[in-house]
């Protein structure tokens, strides 16, 4: 049996991750995504205010902050999901592997094939489990062994053992946590470079959530993961670096996770993390 086959262990400690996570020196790895002076507006309203940050390859980067501070907006800018919102306007740069994703010659469809996304509410297609996972491969015209890919992705998403006998049944028949892992399997099947996750566990119970946390930890071996979360412990457990956004769409502090949670520079960040405001 392969390693990814073992059922995920449930982590109980709330301390900052395993050794290594969250303590690596800044800029130890290559930058994959870099935002420079990013402003985002919805009509007149500004949702992101002059944000600059670099995101490292194979890191898990957590975005935290109070509701409405622009975390989802920032995330959706990275793979241009905001293009679909008519009133949304983006100024400044976001570079992916050194290329500004808002350049005219960048096709958002091609971009999203490199940067997958998992949403807050599990949204499997009303198709079979197999078709769900194969969806990205199908639309990208993948001509290899689709079944092998499906199996591999489901194993990596720690779902294979639960569904291997019912690949033909509908993805909607799964439980919420299973659906979310199915969505993760779907996102990783076409082998993107970056995976964006917008509160992937907020609709799930703690056991299902911790399975997904373990999964994120594994995914970081091969992918760059950017995750929005409202759960401080979760951010502390799974991320290498944490970015704190505060109201107004401002990036207030961005550092190693350990530093943010143990000794933040800004008083406002400390207040937010300790629950004094938010």
């Amino acid at each position: 049996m392969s390693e990814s086959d073992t059922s995920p262990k449930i982590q109980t400690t709330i301390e900052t991750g395993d050794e290594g996570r969250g303590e690596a020196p800044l800029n130890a790895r290559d930058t994959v995504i870099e935002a420079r002076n990013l402003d985002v507006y919805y009509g007149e309203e500004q949702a992101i205010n002059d944000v600059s940050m670099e995101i490292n390859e194979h890191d898990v980067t957590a975005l935290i902050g109070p509701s409405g501070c622009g975390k989802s907006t920032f995330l959706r800018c990275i793979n241009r999901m905001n293009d679909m919102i008519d009133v949304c306007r983006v100024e400044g740069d976001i570079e992916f592997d050194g290329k500004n994703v808002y350049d005219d010659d960048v096709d958002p469809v091609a971009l999203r094939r490199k940067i997958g996304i998992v949403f807050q509410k599990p949204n499997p297609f009303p198709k079979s489990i197999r078709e769900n996972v194969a969806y990205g491969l199908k639309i990208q015209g993948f001509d290899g062994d689709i079944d092998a890919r499906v199996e591999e992705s489901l194993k990596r998403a720690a779902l294979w053992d639960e569904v291997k006998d019912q690949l033909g049944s509908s993805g909607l028949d799964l439980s919420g946590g299973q659906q979310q892992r199915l969505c993760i399997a779907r996102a990783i099947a076409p082998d993107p470079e970056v995976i964006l996750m917008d509160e992937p566990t907020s609709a799930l119970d703690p056991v299902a959530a911790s399975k997904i946390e373990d999964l994120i930890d594994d995914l970081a071996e091969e992918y760059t993961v950017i995750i929005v979360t409202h759960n401080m412990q979760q951010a502390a457990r799974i991320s290498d670096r944490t970015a704190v956004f505060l109201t107004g769409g401002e990036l207030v502090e961005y550092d190693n996770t350990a530093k943010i949670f143990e000794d933040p520079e800004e008083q406002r960040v400390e207040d937010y993390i300790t629950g004094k405001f938010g």
Partner: protein
Amino acid sequence: METEETTSDQLGRSTALRLQQLKGQLFEVALVAATLVGILAVLALFVQISSDAFQPETASPAWFLVYLGTLVGPTAAFTLYARRRPAVRETNAKAFAAVFGGLLLALVTYAVVDSLSPYDVFTYAFFASLPPALVLAYDRTTEDRTYTGPAIPASIIVGVAVAALLYDFVRGPIGVAAEWILYFGLVTVPAALLVWTLTASRRGRRSGALAGGIVAAGGLAVAVASIVTGANASLLVVLYSAFIVPTGYVLWRSVRTDPEGRVGVAGPFVLLGGTLLGAAVVDQFGIRSPDSFLTPNLLLQSWDGLTASNAGVYPQIVGSIIIVGFMAVLAFPVGIGAAIYLEEYAPDTGLRGRLATILEVNISNLAGVPSVVYGLLGLALFRRTLGFGTGIVVTASGTLGLLILPIVIVSTQEALRSVPDDLRQGSYGMGASRWQTLREVVLPEAIPGTLTGTILALARAIGETAPLVIIAIATTTYSPPSGLFSSGTALPLQIFAASANAKPEFRHGVVPAAAVVLLILMLLMNATAIVIRNKYGREN
């Protein structure tokens, strides 16, 4: 001084609460009453019409007893038996769809093709299917399938255009062939290809080719046999290919692969057998049947305004089917396309967004415009502006098409809107283009809802009378339309005209019987669409 209320006082029923509850109950009673009034009114209408059409009071009690024994009893027993066995029920439904769907398909195909001329239909069908067949063949030889999808509808249009251009050249040579050969090409060949691909996908290529070959050979055998015996070879070939073959295929598969539900295939035969047996018994013992006006004459003859028992509406039935069928071809692609544009492509803001909003508001208003007005529009557009002849099929189809267009658009929009946005986001997030998202995720989800809307549209169109009067569709013609540009006729018009007939047996017999035929026609269309919808719904 008042003491404090105790908890039990607070939880008790106050007068205000009781009044509140009474109001709720009254409201509920009123709702139930309204529902009952509606249902009873429709029921009373049906009973009235069908009792006029069938005249059940003229039959002897023995007649009822015979059919109770041969038809109603066994059917009820079978239904009770199947009720608790889902496998049986499912097979039963399949068998019903195959038997009656096949029969219906065969008869409608034969009637329509026969009236439009099999030679013409074959010419167009041949040229329209050749290019897509070539596209599919080419598709197999290449890796790049990007263009196959759009190429197919485009190639069909090209094929039809080529057929229209070459018509004068090819019609002569085709005219040499015997009629049944054309039916063989139109119906047997597709049936054989279908059986071939279905069998090939399950049991491999060789069995597929074998099964397809058997179907085609069977068609030839039927044709030869009927020529030898002097029967109508064309009709028998169509019945064989569209009725016997699908029925046989479904029954054979059910019996072989579904030991639990195989009893279900008996369902349609209980019904058919009961009817035939009843008829035989009634005939044998000379039992008096009702003097029904719904006779084979009514269905198969043309009109006779003097003798009620000779009056038939065959040309009108076929005319209605042709008009509504061609209307569907014209209006559904346009309506569904417009809905997809408005819902999925049109922006919300800016000049184009405002234009789309104006369009949408106007379309919903158009859905309520009286049909007489559409008649005037059709007259002005097709007769005056485009110069089509008076009362021809295309004018009728076009006018009814305009009439149902808003219904199709609005209901398709509704169906598209009900597809959760999460799914679109999910698809875009996987790197799907807009078209891929539409085809893979949105449309499959929207099809059942779209079909519901088109069912309504079809049902409305087949009963429309006023616009057809205005564009001067003929009432009494003695043959169904012979082409899309020949003069049309429609069942509701004949009903309308006959209701003014001086003889009471027309007004109180033939008219209700023809109305029953119209209702059955409508119900059959609805049933077809519902079957398709349910099948689609289940597969997803």
